[in-house]
């Protein structure tokens, strides 16, 4: 047990996160200062959790998809669709819970559509989800009729900007989703089945795993997670911005999953580490913003840091760290 804890703490992702946070602290000394204000925690670290939550939620769904050797490019567009549905419905006078459920259902349907293309029509995932990536944003614009639909509904705004026990609501939702999904996947054989499909779908089917069903499940979950993120993002700015909501976030989500150690070739995945990956990305973004670099450097700094993070968890680097740990353990 002890050994497991040590090796988890020494995982390259957590080391990278600690490294990024230390750099932030070095560039901006009050980075870790957290105060209590208006009934909620307030500070840069809280911003990292709050702003990182949408990508973390996307990464939860994306991890499962990538574990089946797939990829879901449509999550950013599904965010825009879900936000548009929720916003237009509350503006049209529907009660907020109905709007939220409708938006989640729409996200689920979008995900199942991807699952249908991949599992039944056997279209390559990157192409299958590209369809909705392009079309989804158009659908969102149709729903909002090209406007930024603003609303004042307290429930939607609470989902985007509220707080629970002092923590931002978005971060709480991400945490709960992460725990629930991890429990379902790891306390049952489901995770193993998903990995089996990712390693070899034909072999998994022959072994009696209903791989078609599992593909529907992971793409459906990804669409659902995207809808949750979309509602949060809309609630955050109190409006559905079909042009910009979730734009390029599918790439951040894939990056988060990869930083979390999940192989793009499928077969091995970790939901909590994908969430850590999302937090690493956001810690970098927030660090750049508070450190006062000129904006022209944003992308270069980000690229450099990601490069370092990926090197830290490359096979070469990971070989060095665990070997030493096992030796230390053995000596005891």
């Amino acid at each position, binding site marked *: 047990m002890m050994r497991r804890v040590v090796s988890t703490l020494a995982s390259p992702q957590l080391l990278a996160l600690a490294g990024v946070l230390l750099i932030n602290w070095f560039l901006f000394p009050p980075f870790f200062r957290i105060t209590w204000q208006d009934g909620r925690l307030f500070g840069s670290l809280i911003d990292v959790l709050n702003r990182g939550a949408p990508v973390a939620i996307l990464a939860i769904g994306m991890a499962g998809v990538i574990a089946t050797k797939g990829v879901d490019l449509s999550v950013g567009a599904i965010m825009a669709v879900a936000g548009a549905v929720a916003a237009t419905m509350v503006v049209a006078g529907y009660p907020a819970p109905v709007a939220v459920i409708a938006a989640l259902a729409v996200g689920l349907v979008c995900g199942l559509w991807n699952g249908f293309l991949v599992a039944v029509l056997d279209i390559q995932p990157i192409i299958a989800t590209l369809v909705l990536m392009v079309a989804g944003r158009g659908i969102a614009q149709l729903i909002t009729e*090209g406007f*930024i639909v603003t609303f004042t509904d307290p429930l939607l705004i609470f989902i985007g900007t509220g707080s629970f026990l002092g923590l931002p609501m978005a971060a709480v939702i991400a945490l709960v989703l992460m725990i629930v999904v991890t429990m379902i996947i790891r306390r049952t054989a489901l995770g193993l089945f998903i990995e089996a499909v990712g390693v070899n779908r034909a072999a998994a089917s022959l072994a009696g795993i209903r791989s078609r069903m599992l593909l529907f499940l992971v793409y459906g979950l990804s669409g659902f997670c995207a809808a949750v993120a979309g509602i949060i993002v809309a609630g955050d*700015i109190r409006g559905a*911005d079909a042009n910009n909501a979730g734009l390029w976030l599918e790439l951040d989500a894939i990056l988060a999953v990869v930083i979390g150690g999940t192989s793009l070739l499928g077969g091995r995945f970790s939901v909590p580490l994908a969430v850590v990956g999302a937090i690493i990305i956001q810690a970098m973004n927030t660090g750049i913003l*508070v450190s006062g670099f000129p904006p022209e450097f944003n992308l270069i700094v980000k690229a450099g840091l990601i490069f370092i993070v990926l090197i830290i968890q490359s096979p070469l680097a990971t070989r060095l760290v665990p070997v030493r740990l096992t030796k230390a353990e053995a000596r005891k």
Partner: protein
Amino acid sequence: MSIITKLAIAAGLATALSTAAFAQADLSGKVIGFSQIGSESGWRAAETSVTRSEAEARGVDLKFADAQQKQENQIKAIRGFIAQGVDAILVAPVVATGWDDVLTEAKEAEIPVVLLDRGVDAPEDLYLTSIASDQVLEGRVAGEWLVDAVAGEDCNVVELQGTVGSSPAINRKQGFEEGIASASNIKITQSQTGDFTRAKGKEVMEAFLKSSNGGADICAVYAHNDDMAVGAIQAIKDAGLKPGTDIKVVSIDAVPDIFTAIAAGEANATVELTPNMAGPAFDALAAYWADGTEPEKFIITESKLYTAENDPQGEYERRKGLGY
């Protein structure tokens, strides 16, 4: 000489040609073709609807063609207008290059062409005039407003830039710096990109507030567009400060939502990027047809400042139906 420098030179002559200088001419019976880029932004949609209403007010029969962001569609539309024998053509060009052939065809057919809100790299004699806003001037108006508003007191400004490398971001930054150059009491302390979006504007403003002593060290925020300002206003509120009072908010574009904020006292000023490019175009055409007056080659639209004194609620009502 590039289009940009020409526009800058023409800026000085601009005010003389504002719409108000002309009485609204009657153009009834005229058929005018309008090739629009598409409807990629709220402003673009507003430009389309204002063009329609300006045409209607003058009795113009407007033929509208939406190019859906493609130059080949615009060229097709212009050729179509020439074949129909329209009296004039308005174009909002999607790109700057590749217009020489089709503009030559229009010239040979003796149909005047007016360019709206963007210039082209083509010989000047191929079009009647080009109507656009001066983005540097927009920034300067915002800067000069702030100089007046703080009246000599020290003021640290944080800037929310547009997308890095885009021309409105570069020009509006330059203009604002020119506007505050004379006031040594005003300093830009932080500047980051908010990509012209509400969500990014809010996120960047949150970071600025953290790194400026919880916002106590910030006296004003200057956003390159209204959407980022709307996001920043929410971030300021979340930090427990009063936008508009504790931190002044000035931005550019004059979209409807910023007027709601101004009316509520949460934003202080906005500089209009007018969607009415067609009005000056019709006026120039009317003068040209009446007595052959050649208009200025580069007409600059007015960059009007709006504050709480300019009936923000009324401005909101006036704009909300335009498609922003």
